[in-house]
């Protein structure tokens, strides 16, 4: 077993093994890209879809917070010596969960409910990261991510109070939920092995996925009294 190292400051990263440095860089790039892309394809367009000024302004704030997360990760990346252009969606392909074509307010609320729950799990896994600047950033980001998932839960709860809203939310869950298990990566993943080897992340992709499926079931079936669609075996 590799002896656990702890990197307390970005300036000390140069003394860490190359595998550690590369692993941390991959994570920072991925977060920087996906926070930005998520704000661009979901949060910003959702402002127009929101039904009241209250919902529009809250969505506007959420979009700014997501963009703010991108800025934080990008700044950390720059401190680490990563070129800014490598931390944009044009350079690195964003995750497939962003390929969902957003068209309605109900879909957006479901995205916040489920995708932000998935994001919470990813950020939670960094709360004890051995690269402390990333750990600190995860701790800073977590309250806002929790609020975004709560945003989804609150608006979905409001929507399912009517039959029409209930059907629309269920329909959005049926189409979006199947995209989410893949968000946690392959069951056998060299990247995840390396992350855990160095204590950068704590859990396997499958452990995270199972946790997500359980929490999503609790939210959708126990709280909202809706149904989760069956998932393909490969998920």
């Amino acid at each position, binding site marked *: 077993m590799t002896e656990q190292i702890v990197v307390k400051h970005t300036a000390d990263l140069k003394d860490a093994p190359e595998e550690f440095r590369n692993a941390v860089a991959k994570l920072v790039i991925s977060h920087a890209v996906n926070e930005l892309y998520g704000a661009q394809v979901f949060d910003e367009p959702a402002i*127009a879809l929101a039904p*009241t*000024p*209250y*919902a529009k302004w*809250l969505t*506007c704030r*959420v979009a*700014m917070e997501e*963009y703010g997360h991108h800025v934080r990760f990008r700044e950390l990346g720059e401190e680490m010596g990563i070129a800014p252009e490598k931390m944009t969606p044009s350079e690195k392909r964003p995750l497939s969960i962003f390929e969902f074509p957003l068209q309605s307010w109900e879909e957006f609320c479901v995205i916040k409910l489920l995708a932000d729950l998935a994001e919470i799990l990813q950020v939670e896994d960094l709360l004890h990261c051995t690269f402390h600047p990333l750990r600190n950033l995860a701790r800073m980001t977590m309250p806002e991510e929790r609020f975004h998932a709560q945003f989804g839960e609150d608006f979905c709860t409001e929507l399912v109070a009517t039959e029409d809203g209930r059907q629309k939310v269920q329909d959005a869950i049926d189409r979006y939920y199947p995209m989410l298990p893949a968000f946690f990566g392959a069951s056998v993943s060299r990247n995840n092995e390396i992350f855990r080897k160095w204590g950068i992340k704590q859990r396997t992709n499958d452990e995270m996925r199972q946790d997500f499926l359980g929490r999503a079931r609790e939210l959708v079936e126990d709280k909202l009294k809706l149904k989760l669609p069956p998932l393909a075996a490969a998920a």
Partner: protein
Amino acid sequence: MSASAAAPLVAALAPLDDLRTRVRLASWFAAVGETLTAAERWDARAWLAGMGFASAGVEPVADWGRAAEVAKSPAWSREWWEAEEKRRAALLDRAAQSIPEHELMAALSRVMELAASVTHGAAAIAAARAGVADQALSRVAAGAAAQSAYQAALAAIAHDGADEHPFSIKFRLFEAGRWPLGVSDGAFHLF
């Protein structure tokens, strides 16, 4: 970019220096719920006239609970939001004639980032002072304020700093500690 090529860009974005200072120094949400002053009523009527709603009245909003009700009301007028969106699009087109898109977006983003960093805490404090602990509502207020800062930035760039554009007037109301809630039930609601 050479110094001579950069000079027009610097000049075009110069009105934002003043605006960023105003965003930093504004009394965000410090006067919500207080009696409207004559100057605030004048600004509210000027905003209405500028947006094409001259016949609407000005309705003071007394507390955070009522502000949330107005912002959530199904009776809100979509026309004012759409009218603002049209003006925003027109200003963007106009600004893009003199400023390259990337520089324009970057400059506007910097104003938004600054507004985002100062307005949320101010809204949460103002609400807490009034005995309201509602995370969502203080974020709604901060979202509205940051949107206004963005609109004012666009107006300042595209209109050479002129401050009688409706977006500049709305920002002035925010700057004075108010929260303009838009048009609902035939009146401009001002918290």
